[in-house]
């Protein structure tokens, strides 16, 4: 087991280097490079841009710039925001709690929806519950998240006036209830989309497991249906689902971009759209790297969790 974990961690390192190179090239391949925003500004003279280029080291060979950036990034020096001059780390850190809150709530809801739906749909294959959830989850997978968010806003905030349409809390404070009310709609958007995909996945993997010989043998030994489904089948079907859930969770670090902007939720997703509007490349690069690193790291965690649930994984 230990060897397995160490090996997976070591494999993640070259992957992170590749990701960082892709992110770096993307920003630097842009016409005008990171200084593009100044090129269209009539108040900035060409010689000023030239001076900035030299000051920022943009005149050096690309690989040298990449190396400097990567080394600094690895040590936690993520540079300064182009738009307000504050350290990128500070700008990101102040947004983390809001995103964690939203993503955490969405994950809890999504898992709570996924487990019963996936298990029941698999054990009642072809019956009305299975058909209904198949249709609903198909719609959920196909939903444009931002439109779903707009609809919920239109119905529950603008139309009925039951819930606030945006933000994290009513300005000037607000109690716990106010906070929960703000959290509700964006959470529903994320949770519905996630649970739609996951429950289909769990259903499929449950069906596959339920058809295996050891299930038949467990039933033949006289174990109750409930025990066979929940203890034998579910445990085996859970491994692949864990992998999907962890990777989706990691993608949410930035993947809540759409939901966060629709609901003006002040997290990392909104920071991304704000930085994008101002061409704040240092912030954009840091966010992309952060989220890609999260995916790579969570992949290792997912493998580890999979190996715990299903020891065959670590051996092979």
């Amino acid at each position: 087991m230990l060897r397995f974990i160490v090996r997976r961690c070591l494999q993640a390192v070259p992957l992170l280097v590749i990701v960082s190179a892709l992110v770096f090239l993307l920003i630097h391949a842009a016409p005008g490079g990171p200084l593009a925003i100044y090129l269209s500004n009539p108040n900035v003279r060409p010689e000023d841009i030239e001076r900035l280029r030299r000051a920022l080291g943009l005149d050096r060979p690309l690989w040298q710039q990449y190396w400097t950036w990567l080394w600094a990034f690895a040590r936690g020096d993520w540079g300064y925001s182009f738009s307000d001059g504050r350290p990128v780390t500070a700008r990101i850190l102040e947004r983390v709690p809001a995103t964690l809150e939203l993503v955490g709530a969405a994950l809890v809801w999504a898992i709570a929806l996924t487990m019963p739906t996936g298990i029941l749909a698999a054990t009642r294959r072809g019956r009305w519950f299975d058909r209904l959830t198949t249709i609903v989850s198909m719609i959920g997978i196909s939903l444009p998240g931002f439109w779903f968010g707009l609809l919920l806003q239109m119905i529950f905030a603008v139309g009925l006036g039951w819930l606030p349409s945006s933000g994290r809390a009513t300005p000037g404070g607000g109690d716990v209830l106010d906070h929960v009310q703000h959290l509700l709609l964006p959470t529903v958007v994320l949770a519905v989309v996630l649970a739609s995909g996951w429950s289909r996945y769990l259903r499929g993997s449950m069906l596959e497991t339920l058809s295996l010989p050891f299930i038949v043998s467990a039933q033949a030994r006289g174990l109750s249906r409930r025990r066979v489904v929940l203890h034998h089948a579910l445990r085996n079907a859970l491994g692949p689902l864990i992998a999907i859930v962890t990777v989706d969770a990691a993608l949410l670090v930035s993947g809540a971009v759409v939901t966060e902007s629709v609901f003006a939720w002040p997290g990392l997703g909104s920071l991304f759209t704000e930085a994008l509007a101002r061409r704040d490349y240092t912030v954009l690069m840091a966010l992309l790297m952060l989220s890609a690193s999260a995916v790579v790291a969570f992949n290792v965690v997912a493998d580890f969790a999979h190996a715990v649930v299903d020891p065959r994984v670590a051996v092979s």
Partner: protein
Amino acid sequence: MRLPAFLIACLIAAAIAAPLVAPYGPERIDLARRREAPSLAHLFGTDELGRDVFSRVVYGARVSLAVGMLSAVVASACGVAIGGVAGYAGGALDAGLMRVTDGMLAIPRLPLLMIAAVVLQPSVPMLILLIGLAGWMETARVVRAEFNTLGGRGFVESARAAGAGHIRVLVRHLLPNAAQAVAVSLTLAVARGILLESALSFFGVGVRPPAASWGNMLYQAQSALGTEPWLAVTPGVFILLTTVSVNALGDRLASRS
């Protein structure tokens, strides 16, 4: 299979025959009839410039469907090429290509495309290319896995022994066997392409007004949620209808094996 395929056929037909289907021009401004609720004259109402929403949706279908389908073709072509070479060659080349694939998969797709779109200010063909280039990884993985298992079978070896070159083996012997897997990932890529286009346009960095796409219609509708809800409902319903149909089609294709 029938209903989704029928819906998609209708949408494509309407998009192609847009001048015949749409009662008004998509960019025809009628300031006397601004923000009108749905009526017989304007089935889905009019927007803030008096343009007919139904006509805009029909013309928007051209852009949205074209972006979805063509970007899926780009993605699949790249995926087949990269996954095919990796699965057939094996060894270091395979390992290298698959690490790049993993790397691309780790970078969140929409934010990546948003940055690219802001930087490049893409035209519609450019947008198709960008969305396609951000979506080849899934196909590459599937094709690689298929080629990997097929590569060890006797027929590949016998074709090689009979004097077939690598390209011929890849295209004539291996690719047909992976056709179904490619078809499934192609349909999924169509739905994803439509969603990505709408999201990019919704953020104002995709298809630029005044040309209509379902995404940028939603972008313009955002400010009128309380007063003219039909502006936001109609394009969204069309996006959803299309993606559900395409995904259902992909689902059926996948379960055929």
